[in-house]
């Protein structure tokens, strides 16, 4: 999924922080993926 120009990499890197936070503090495992559903 194309998120746009390279500046969006900053957002993706922050999204990984979210991913790691979920893994470390909530889900306690790494068997999940961040997904996006687009309506329509």
């Amino acid at each position, binding site marked *: *999924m*194309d998120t746009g120009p390279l500046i969006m*990499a900053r957002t993706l890197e922050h999204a990984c922080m979210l991913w790691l936070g979920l893994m*470390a503090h909530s889900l306690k495992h*790494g068997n999940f993926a961040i997904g996006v559903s687009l309506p329509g």
Partner: protein
Amino acid sequence: MGTISIIGSGGMAASIGGLAAKAGHAVEVTSRDAAKAGALALEIGADATAGGFGEAPSGDIVILAVPYSAALDVVRQYGEKLAGKILVDITNPIKSDLSGFLTPPDSFGAKEIAKVAPANTIVVKAFNTQNARVLASGPVQGHPLDVFIAGDDAQAKARVRRSLRASDCARWIPVR
């Protein structure tokens, strides 16, 4: 199908290398540890090869699959050998204790990598939100995984997307 070069020999290198091989690409693996690169090439199969670390990658698309803490030095070491290549940054510049980022507040990992890469190297961000094992295992309950891509060059991004999907592998290729 072209060649995909991968710098690194860890879990993400294995997962992405496996995807690339199954999509019909030749895969070249390089690592500071030549033995690990050779072992990963054997694991990937499909005639994957081990290249010399620091030597010019054979692929036009180069996956930078090393930790961010090593990424800048690796890119500096390759230097002009990355000129004209599409450099896929899969890193996350996050401190090991998750307390923050390793990059300056006004910057981000891909930007720092682009700064040390040759001027005509095209940096594309991808795969950084994926876990290696999840990526390798493919769709989750029938849903393809989202691989987010960011970059300033639309053609380069399209090439990265095409490189990891093929019609005969569409059932499991997670990139969309």
